[in-house]
């Protein structure tokens, strides 16, 4: 029988051991960092593909009025395209997990990052170049609206950093 024990002095796969010195060691360190960076990028891209697929499904399923069983408005193509743009604007070297897609009754599309009880951040778009956001950070709360131009507004990234420091 074997017993699993936590490794408390092991290096993370993303940390190059700092026991070497000299130019060869420096070169290896840079090479290792590049491999890890590419690995993370591929992993993140895979997760983006999954979220985009789930966005496609939501758009298909919620394109007719009343899709929620009540009186929800259809998700519009503008909302779909803006959500796609928002997801692709998320930082690739990601400190944040990919969001959950949730259709909203007014025809908007919400993205939610749930981290725990009263630890959640949500944004919503409707194809109007605006990001409506709200978040619960324990006892602290925030909400507002930001113009969504060419890049993701810094307020959105800052709020995600509050959740994923």
């Amino acid at each position, binding site marked *: 029988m074997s017993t699993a024990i936590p490794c408390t002095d092991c290096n993370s796969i993303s940390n190059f051991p700092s026991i070497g010195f000299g130019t060869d060691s420096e070169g290896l360190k840079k090479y290792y960092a590049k491999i890890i960076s590419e690995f993370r990028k591929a992993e993140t891209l895979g997760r983006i593909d999954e979220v985009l697929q789930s966005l496609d499904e*939501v758009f298909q399923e*919620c394109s007719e009025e*009343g*899709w*929620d*069983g*009540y*009186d*929800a*408005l259809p998700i519009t193509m503008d909302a779909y395209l803006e959500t796609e743009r928002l997801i692709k604007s998320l930082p690739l070297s990601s400190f944040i997990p990919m969001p*959950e*897609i*949730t*259709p*909203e*009754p*007014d*025809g*908007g599309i*919400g993205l*939610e990052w*749930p981290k725990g*009880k*009263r630890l*959640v951040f*949500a944004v*919503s778009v409707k194809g109007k170049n605006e990001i*409506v*956001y*709200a*978040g*619960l950070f324990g006892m602290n*709360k*925030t*909400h*507002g*609206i930001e113009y969504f131009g060419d890049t993701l507004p810094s307020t959105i990234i800052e709020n995600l950093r509050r959740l994923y420091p």
Partner: protein
Amino acid sequence: MTQVDPSETLSRFILQKDWYRPSDNSVKHAAFMPNPKNGETSVFRISGISHKEVWDIGDREVAKIRNKPILGRADIGASNVMAKDLKVLPIEPPVRHANITGWPEEKSKQILIALELAAEAHFHKK
């Protein structure tokens, strides 16, 4: 039709699969967002009745009429709703039906309140 007491429990029937998380049986904010047609959120008053009776109400008064199956329900205390400056108004028929009213105009405020309600609700999968 009696006024809703803060001690009552309200149930929001869920017919959309992207409004809850099967992984931890929690509910998302969109489940509580107001209906765009009337600005209210439809709920049922379920205090004093069994789980079976609650599901029966959902099947009879929501699923059958909307021609969509009930996937679950989010139960929340009326006091939680009222604490957010919202009102719960009995609107019958159907029996036990009520609407959450008084939502703010600003959507960001609506989402914030809906996030809080979702965090305080108990989801029951059908």
